[in-house]
């Protein structure tokens, strides 16, 4: 599971480079996220625009990352594809995360 991370003053942007976060990838995703956000500022933007499938294990892994970052740092999600958004909507987890539909919207919000 590859992610790319870029840190700016106010936030760290982590982009998932794979097209799915499923049961087979969930552990690797959590490890990659922990490494990428080790010294992150208070906001971590998770860019999911390349991800076209998550299952409940992928959802659980994203929740685990949010819990790992809390309470000092917040995880917000950006660029959800329809299939990813569906899982967040069905499980109501979309209400727990800050969600930006596009990456640009998230960057604009946090660059201020």
């Amino acid at each position, binding site marked *: 599971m590859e992610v790319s991370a870029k840190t700016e003053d106010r936030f760290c942007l982590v982009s998932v480079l794979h097209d799915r976060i*499923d*049961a*087979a990838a969930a552990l690797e995703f959590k490890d990659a996220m922990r490494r990428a956000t080790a010294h992150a500022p208070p906001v971590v933007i998770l860019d999911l625009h390349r991800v076209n*499938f998550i*299952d*409940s*294990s992928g*959802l*659980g*892994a994203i*929740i*685990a990352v*949010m*819990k790992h970052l*809390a*309470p000092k740092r917040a995880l917000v999600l950006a660029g959800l594809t*329809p*299939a990813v958004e*569906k*899982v967040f909507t*069905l*499980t*109501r*987890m979309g*209400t*727990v995360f800050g969600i930006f539909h596009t990456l640009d919207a998230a960057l604009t919000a946090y660059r201020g």
Partner: protein
Amino acid sequence: MRLSAARSALCPFEITVHSGPQAAREALTLLLDALSCLSLGAEEVCVVRLVVAEMLNNIVEHAYPDPHPPGPIHIACHHAPDGLHLAVSDEGLPMPDLQVPLGLPQEIDRPVCDLPEGGFGWFLIRDLAKDLTYRRLAQENRIDLRLPVGLPPR
């Protein structure tokens, strides 16, 4: 009309994969390939992927848990006017109490540190699949379900 004709062209088929970390991916590749003649929409494909992934991940984790030996997972599929009918079977451990989990929604109105990281799988299956039944037949688990996709145009 072309769509309708194409959608009736799916012959019943069965696929088998071996339990393991890649089982869901392998099954989905085979299944979606076999379903390509139905020309399912993106939303319909999403339903198939989610339900089948959750079903197979459950089997890998709970029917064939380590250190029990892995075994086969079969998916039999046929298409009918009310959707796609799947029979998913394995030769692993039975469901606890011989019942399918209720898959109740998770409690999420709580502090971040107390949020659940699991337990969403059966909720998703129950939410998306219809007419789900479970049977333990001799040494086999069998779940029959229907996915309301590939319906005739209205």
